[in-house]
């Protein structure tokens, strides 16, 4: 399975920004080690959550035709900690996007309080050998599971729908099975 570090999209505006929430729960095993008797979400997983929010936003912009990978986090600042019971809201905004990759700015809010902010840089991979890691069914499932098509809008304001190429690819795969 994929490692999900966001629970649901609450806004998804194609080519512009996406907002997702992450509920922190004591049921997450790793929190019992990070740290014993003082659980808090590891900062690295907050970065991963912001990257998942931004990565799907960047991928959707290109109709999932590019292999988008987290390349670099040039800047990240944490202002406070987040503990079980907190809900984090990650907002990622596309700052710049071109053929080779994309830069997004990201924030994490705990209620009204700024919890973290970051710049995240994604690269588009061209290596065809990595195709299996970027199957269309993976993205279709992730976007559906995270509710992106329930809350999202395309650039023209119409409801966000799965790109035709993604649906066709999944249908073709199912027909082959």
């Amino acid at each position: 399975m994929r490692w999900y570090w966001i629970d649901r999209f609450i806004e998804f505006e194609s080519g512009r920004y996406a907002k997702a929430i992450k509920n922190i729960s004591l049921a997450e095993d790793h929190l019992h080690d990070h740290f014993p008797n003082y659980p808090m979400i590891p900062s690295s997983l907050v970065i991963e959550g912001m990257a998942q929010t931004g990565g799907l936003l960047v991928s959707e912009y290109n109709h999932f035709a590019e292999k988008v990978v987290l390349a670099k986090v040039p800047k990240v600042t944490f202002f406070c900690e987040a503990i079980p019971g907190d809900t984090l809201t990650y907002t990622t905004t596309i700052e710049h996007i071109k053929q080779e990759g994309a830069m997004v700015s990201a924030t994490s809010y705990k209620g009204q309080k700024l919890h973290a902010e970051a710049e995240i840089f994604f690269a588009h991979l061209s290596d065809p050998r990595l195709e299996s890691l970027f199957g269309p069914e993976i993205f279709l499932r992730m976007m559906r599971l995270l509710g992106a098509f329930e809350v999202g809008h395309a650039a023209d304001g119409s409801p966000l729908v799965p790109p035709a190429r993604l649906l066709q690819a999944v249908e073709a795969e199912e027909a082959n099975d």
Partner: protein
Amino acid sequence: MPTKDEIFEKIQVALVDALGVDDDEVTPEATLVGDLGAESIDFLDIVFRLEKGFDIKIPRGELFPEDVLTDSQYVQDGRVTEAGIEELRKRMPFANLAAFAENPVVQDFGNVLTVADMCRFVESKVEVAG
């Protein structure tokens, strides 16, 4: 229309943000790879910041023509050939390639580009105030 000083200052900010270096390290003579520690992915980051900061377009390979360095027509036994140096001069008129041309080992090419070269590159893409 920016002045040369303003171009340098903006490039300084871009490099501080992209490479996590201090602004006093970003001198005109500093090399991007050797002195400022830039790695390959950083060049794309820098290109993004220059495009955004100066509202310009930088096509792939224009600032750093890596395709020349992987072209067997221009590289032999890990060294850039005469024709390769000529091609690099043509593609990078903003860079001083004299020292590299004396001992053109491909691996050392990363050390060619300086902050001053980058300023000249941007100056060639924007109108500079008197």
